[in-house]
């Protein structure tokens, strides 16, 4: 077996990275996605790779050991409303938890600040499970000593009723189940007795955290996604098998690891946003090869801007995750969405002459005016075209024509005229405004979270990113930017750099002090469970790596931080001391000086174990560094705006693919790749490294 294939399917594109362990060669390809049957796009993109490798598709697939996959199929199903019908069993008295959405929370969460200010125009999203498919069973006891007060007959009857009413799957969330799981387990046994093929989700397994609303919402989403995602994965595997694939299919989770198909199918909420997470992992991998472990991964495309932070090699977990305004709780790495991208529409208030960027977007259809697809509004991408950055030959892979004149017309009418400025003055100033706003948002996502941008490298991907990155990064104080050669398929690259990961946790608030025996009692079952899971997935002990984390907080404060720990057994007093020390440092970093209240005491809230099954992967080939002269890659000279000189100037334009490792480009300059355009200011210098990444130093 010699290939590992990584494929990421997004709403628009299907990206692919294939690495061969014979040669270490990495092949990249990209095609349009093919909804509703996405597997057609997979066959298309693999066909391109096979062609590149000069073998047949059958030969490629039959020689592939690992097929690693991230997909937006879960998000798509939620957006399109093509979800399974699910029933919910919960604690009686709390059947309306899902519907109540914690009061107004469901009405305003997920909205922009501007939208929140107009409550008369806000609405809750449709409820995930209707009241008639929800049943309550009584509880007794308190907190960790919770009992389900229902007979087996009651439970059986409840399940039977839900199935008769058309539930294809069953979600279960009882109060306090993350401390007292017995009730939920009894319900599952009953479901298995009754209808073993019915998809069932227990809240303490999938979201063992405090907070019944978020837990219920998670099981509801999971149960409604379950049958849909299972069908998708079965179909995909069938299609691959039919083409000769005999290896394993692993599916990416938003926690940053892969799971075998059967496991992934049980927890489809874990797949939500796994594509963007893969992208951040891809950027982390680019950093890892360069020995960089503090980086900001920014992906600015036509319709979205995603941002992830890797701090000391780790990516933080997200709080209050949401998909399409539905809350869920699942260990998901934090990828933030900023409300500004290439398609953001620029408008000017006729009364005051004040411009605004977004929030309206021209999307990808009709898209910016320069696409020539009927878009009449001026967008950020149109400004980039006017400033001379975009090269018609590279525009959208050279397959569509760039209509700079349409961009100029739209900008003249909707922006320059209302501003009362000549177009050539207005466009650079709007460009500056866009970069300033991005810098503000980036500040909130980084500095506000206690990290110093000067210590971070920014990895920039996405079609629009390269034209803005040097400007906004320098505003935030970042000194180094990398535009990787894999920029167009970063998520696919992230896949082939990932491992199989199982994450298990126990939520059990314990106020310190805690004894070594207690710690042992909490961690050893988790370690055993992860060990068993890895073994089942076929990993020998020497191909696994297990790490632990503890979520800690100051008593009576709301926020917790996840503290990585160095050991999973043999705990002693100094271990607790060190962990507390690390907790206090992380807390201060995250929430600011003096934010902790030690006198109230410290609590360990959740205990987590992450077990990785390390996948054998070939060493990637690097290329030797050569001459510094980029001359051979020079394509043309053209008039473009130089941001830090504030003039239009004749600047050299290079083609990314012709640059050789070792080449150095002094700004001002432009570099075109099939996936993006990189603008270098006069102060910038870029170098192509041995992995063919473009590394920009900003002074």
């Amino acid at each position, binding site marked *: 077996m010699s290939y590992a294939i990584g494929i990421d399917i997004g709403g628009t594109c299907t990206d692919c990275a294939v690495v061969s362990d014979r040669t270490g060669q990495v092949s990249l390809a990209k095609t349009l996605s093919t909804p509703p049957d996405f597997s057609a796009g997979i066959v298309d993109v693999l066909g391109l790779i096979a062609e590149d490798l000069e073998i047949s598709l059958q030969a490629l697939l039959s020689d592939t050991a690992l097929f690693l996959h991230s997909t937006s199929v879960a998000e798509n199903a939620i957006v399109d409303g093509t979800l399974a019908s699910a029933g919910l069993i919960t604690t*009686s*008295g*709390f*059947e*309306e*938890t899902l*519907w*109540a959405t*914690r*009061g*107004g*929370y469901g*009405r*305003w969460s997920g909205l922009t*600040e*501007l939208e*929140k*200010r*107009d*409550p*008369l125009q806000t*609405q809750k999203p449709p409820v995930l499970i209707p*009241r008639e498919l929800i049943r309550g069973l009584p509880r007794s006891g*308190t*907190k960790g000593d919770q009992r389900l007060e229902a007979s087996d007959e009651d439970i059986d009857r409840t399940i039977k009723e839900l199935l008769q009413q058309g539930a294809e799957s069953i979600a279960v969330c009882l*109060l*306090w189940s993350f401390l007292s799981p017995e009730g939920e387990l009894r319900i599952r046994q009953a479901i298995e007795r009754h209808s073993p093929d019915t998809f069932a989700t227990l809240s303490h397994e999938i979201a063992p955290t*405090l*907070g*019944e609303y978020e837990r219920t919402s998670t099981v509801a989403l999971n149960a409604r996604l379950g049958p849909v995602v299972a069908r998708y994965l079965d179909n995909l595997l069938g299609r691959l098998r039919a083409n000769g694939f005999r290896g394993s299919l692993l599916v990416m989770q938003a926690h940053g690891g892969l799971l075998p198909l059967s496991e992934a199918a049980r927890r489809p909420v874990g797949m939500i946003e796994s594509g963007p997470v893969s992208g951040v992992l891809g950027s982390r991998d680019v950093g890892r090869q360069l020995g960089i472990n503090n980086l900001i991964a920014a992906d600015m495309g036509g319709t979205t801007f995603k941002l992830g932070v890797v701090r000391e090699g780790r990516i933080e977990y997200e709080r209050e995750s949401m998909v399409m305004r539905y809350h869920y709780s699942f260990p998901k790495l934090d990828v933030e969405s900023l409300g500004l991208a290439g398609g953001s529409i620029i408008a*000017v*208030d006729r*009364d*005051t*002459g*004040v*411009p*605004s960027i977004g929030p309206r977007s021209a999307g990808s259809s009709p898209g910016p005016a320069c696409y020539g697809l009927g878009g009449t509004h001026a967008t950020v991408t149109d400004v980039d075209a006017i400033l001379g950055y975009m090269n018609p030959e590279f525009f959208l892979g050279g397959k569509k024509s760039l209509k700079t004149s349409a961009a100029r017309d739209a900008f003249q009418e909707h922006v320059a005229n209302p501003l009362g400025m000549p177009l050539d003055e207005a466009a650079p100033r*709007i460009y*500056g*405004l866009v970069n*300033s*706003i991005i810098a*503000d*948002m980036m*500040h*909130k996502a980084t500095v*506000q979270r206690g990290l110093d941008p000067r210590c971070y490298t920014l990895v920039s991907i996405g079609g629009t990113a390269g034209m803005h990155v040097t400007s906004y990064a320098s505003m935030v104080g970042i000194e180094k930017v990398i535009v990787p050669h894999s920029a167009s398929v970063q998520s696919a690259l992230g896949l082939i750099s990932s491992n199989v990961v199982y994450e298990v946790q126990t939520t059990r608030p314990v*106020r310190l002090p805690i004894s070594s025996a207690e710690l042992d009692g909490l961690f050893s079952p988790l370690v055993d469970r992860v060990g068993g899971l890895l073994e089942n997935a076929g990993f020998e002990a020497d191909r696994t790596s297990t790490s632990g984390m503890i979520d800690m907080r*100051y008593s*009576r404060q*709301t926020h917790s931080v996840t503290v990585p720990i160095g050991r999973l057994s043999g705990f002693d007093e100094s271990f607790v001391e060190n962990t507390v020390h690390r907790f206090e440092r992380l807390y201060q970093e*995250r*929430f*600011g*000086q*003096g*934010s902790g*209240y030690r006198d*109230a005491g410290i609590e360990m809230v959740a205990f987590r174990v992450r077990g990785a099954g390390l996948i054998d992967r070939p060493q990637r080939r690097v290329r030797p560094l050569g001459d510094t002269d980029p001359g051979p890659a020079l394509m043309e000279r053209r008039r473009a705006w130089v941001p830090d000189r504030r003039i239009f100037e004749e600047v050299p334009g290079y083609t990314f693919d012709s640059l050789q490792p070792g080449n150095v480009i002094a700004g001002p300059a432009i570099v075109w790749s099939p996936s993006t355009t990189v603008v270098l200011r006069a102060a910038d210098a870029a170098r192509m490294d041995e992995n063919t990444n473009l590394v920009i130093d900003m002074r």
Partner: protein
Amino acid sequence: MRSVTVDGITFEMIRHKLHMVTAEALEALKNVSGTPSTSESLDVMVALYDRNGNLMLGGVGFSHHITSAAQAVKHLINQYCDDPGIEEDDAYLVNDPYTAALHAPDLYMISPIVAAGDLFGFVANFVHVTDIGAVDPGGFCPTARSSYEEGFQTPGLRLVKGGVLVRDVLDTLLNMVREPGMVQLDLRSQLAANHVAKNRIKELVREFGAEIVSQVADDLMNQSEERLKARLKEMPDGTWRTRQHVDAAGHLATVELTMTKREDSLTYDFTGSSPQLPIGINCTYWAAWGAMFAPLFPQLCWDLTWNDGITRPVRMIAPEGTIVNCTRPAPTSVATVGIVQVINNLSTVSLSKMLGASDRYHDRATAVWYGSHASVRVFGTTIESGYFLSSLTDTFAGAGGASAARDGIDLGGELPNVVSRWGNVERHESMAPMRYLYRRAVPDSGGPGRFRGGVSHEYAFTIDATNTEDDAFNVMLFGKGVRVPMSIGIFGGYPGCTVRYSTVREARTQQVASAPIEATEGEKTSWGTFILGASDAQIIRQGGGGGYGDPIDRDPEAVMADVLSGAVSVGAARDTYGVQLDAETRRVDRAGTADRRRQIRAERCGVNVAAIPKRTSTAVGGSRIGEYLRVAPSGETLCAWCGSSIAPKGERWKDRAQARRSKLGDDSAGSASENEGLELREFFCSTCGTLLDCEIALESDPVLNDDIVRWPKR
């Protein structure tokens, strides 16, 4: 209109940065504070002020504070500039309601922002601190009869001098509160938030210069002022009268509001409101001032920057010594869930009546959202960890008011704080030794109307005897709106349900959990502190949102859907909405419904069913008064439903409408005697019986008449 003097692009760059300053500071506040009302329910505020104390920019949160804190800043400038001085990196506390605050526990932390050597402005925030050393724990004081029992109150105290916490001041403050550790954390969160804002503003000034940034701030204020004025000019000129009776602790008090709009100015006149009371629901002048604006921001200024410019066209008349402008020593600790909220409600209704009379904006007319908070504090001693004091966040669930285009949002929040929410049951059970029995929607709680008010919820809890010392803890209540429904409906819409409390002694849990509150035989205590024992249960029903328009004008299919979802009972569907349902097919009986509705109209008019006309098929022209009334060019008032004349030129329509007066429904209170003198007034079109307006009044109250003197030219 060209209020922006800085070039537009620079303006937008700086405006965006200013917005981010408040957003980042709010984040810091939430991150550090341990108080659930801050982090779980978002009972918070951060705002920027210019060097004269004028509101520059308010972030989201409880918005009555952003205008009141402006007064706090102005007070500091006037009183302490020279002695002891306001210097760089100082921070002051203000929480005296007679100076500027709303009530003592909502502590303003105010920091001057000195940039490039000069005073640039101020940043202020508030949190409801865990305790303020008053007679009752937690800051709300049902026991207090004067402000001297309501704890620590300062008109200005320098807590931080030149960046250093003043130790003796801090110690003094912490020495008088019940939970010094938590209060210290509250203070720290406030300092952290101001610190973030100060640094960001300094960077901003460094980049653009103080003059330009100040200019943008001024421009923003002028822009909001001009836009609000322009919007006001698009509305009719007139006077709208509203009134709300409020019952609390056995008192019945009244707030009267006459809102007059002329050209581009708006006057709120509270003349006629009750004298101040010896219980803490009173509000001071600046609390009333903030309360008036809290709904005005989202209702009238949803797309404007919330700053001083919005306050400029608005004037307030609030007679001294009344519940809307009390004088020392009247207690005020319950103001925020007392008269402040009543003013919120009346401001909403007045603005909605004006909006409803506007051709352009009538879609924005809304009934009152969640007119009465019903806060609950529990405190006592746990076996696990000693003293506890916890506020239940159920009251932050809210319920939307119905509006011209849609139903109120069930459990949908409130207008004065556009981002509130409740905390999970598991969170509450982990903070206090208690057990929730249920949280569930209340059928028929949403005010009936053409569009229905959002439903509210009811919940019950017991103590967790396994973790409570002495098998009991204290429950503190300071409720209102038990007798009088507080979420007023509009244009014929009925109010949402009242608040209801029931303390069931020796409760059988199973029975409490399965029966609605009305079915329980409990004590109806709504004010004060009492003990909840091991076998007792406490039940609280929150008030629903107000309705919009006549309920018999509601789409019968929507009523059917409400019955199926449980929002409306079959009885109310038939009696209030006039919808006949076929129990077997679960369908609307269309013919039966039409008959039933005609019958209701006939009963309202006191005529034969045959005399009721059909709905007019042609649109009734003229200027709008609300959903169903038009003033024809001739000056006659017409019913938009049937097209017939209600009142001739020169006469007020309510004088000619069919009126019906009835005792408040017994659902609104325990016994009829408690409601002595209170009545529901319904005004119908005398021809077709369409419900045009409802009033809840004392028998002696004059009818509320509005006078629209001029509509803008189309």
